[in-house]
């Protein structure tokens, strides 16, 4: 499968999805007005990856901000990962948040309670 590699912009995150290593990364800011356009290809990629995933898929999410439009799309991404995990493949989601950013930590906990995939909350200390 072709990897995804998208450079971040002031409104959209840096994205690196690699089917060979099973490393899925979303990093930066996600505040586009219409997030469906940005996230649909990512969700489609995960659907295809799910047909033949590697033994352990590691997801690294490190977002500074994301708007509510993105939050729904991010949930869609997580739902694809949940399906991969349900099919007895190992998946771990590393949710990063900046020191003192309770809102971002809470957002991670929200997802953790909705999605049946192991989450790890990682505090970034500068």
């Amino acid at each position, binding site marked *: 499968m072709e990897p995804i590699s998208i450079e971040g912009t*002031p*409104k959209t995150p840096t994205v690196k999805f690699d089917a060979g290593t099973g490393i899925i990364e979303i990093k930066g800011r996600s*505040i*586009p*007005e*219409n*997030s*469906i356009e940005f996230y649909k290809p990512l969700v489609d990629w995960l659907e295809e990856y799910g047909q033949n995933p590697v033994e352990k898929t590691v997801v690294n999410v490190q977002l500074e*901000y994301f*708007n*509510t*439009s993105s*939050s*729904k*799309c991010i*949930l869609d991404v997580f739902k694809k990962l949940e399906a991969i995990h349900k099919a007895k493949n190992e998946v771990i989601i590393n949710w990063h948040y900046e020191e*003192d*950013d309770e*809102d971002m930590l*809470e957002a991670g906990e*929200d997802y953790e*309670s*909705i999605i049946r995939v192991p989450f790890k909350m990682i505090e970034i200390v500068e």
Partner: protein
Amino acid sequence: MSFDVHEYYSQLDSGNVLLAYKGSITTDLINNVLEQIEVKLESVDEEAKIRKKVYNVLVESLQNLYHHVEELPEEYKSRDKFDSKFGVLVIAKDKDTIKISTGNFITSEKIKFLKDKIDKINSLSKDELKDMYKFILNHQKLSAKGGGGLGLVDIARKTGNKLEYTFQHYKDDYYFFNLDVFIT
């Protein structure tokens, strides 16, 4: 006497205003405002936690405007000098509170839904707001424009303060909706 939007705006734009805008709500406008406010908040030495909250609230408020501004009929636009997709944004500081005011035209049929939603949000506890957010997140589809029904809930959750609003009658079926968000 119909509500005078320009008069109302000039009253808002007084005191310690960090940013004020009235005109078309476009993607470019949103990008410019977000860029400017980041610089502005750093220059007045606002603490990082508040800066992040202001930024988050702004992102959601501007996007609400973007998705929901009602386009006025041409005759009103030219007579009263309103741009297309007209909206108002004022960010002001009063002692330790930052107030973000947004305004847009709305048709009367939308008022009840909006009023009920805000009243409901204002009545919920912190935990109930979290549950509401998670419920909408998990159960509602994104609209074609990318709106999700989460903006106001998110704003209330992040600020921990009540949302204040007014509906002023403008002309015929059109009202002007103003929303005040307080960050303390």
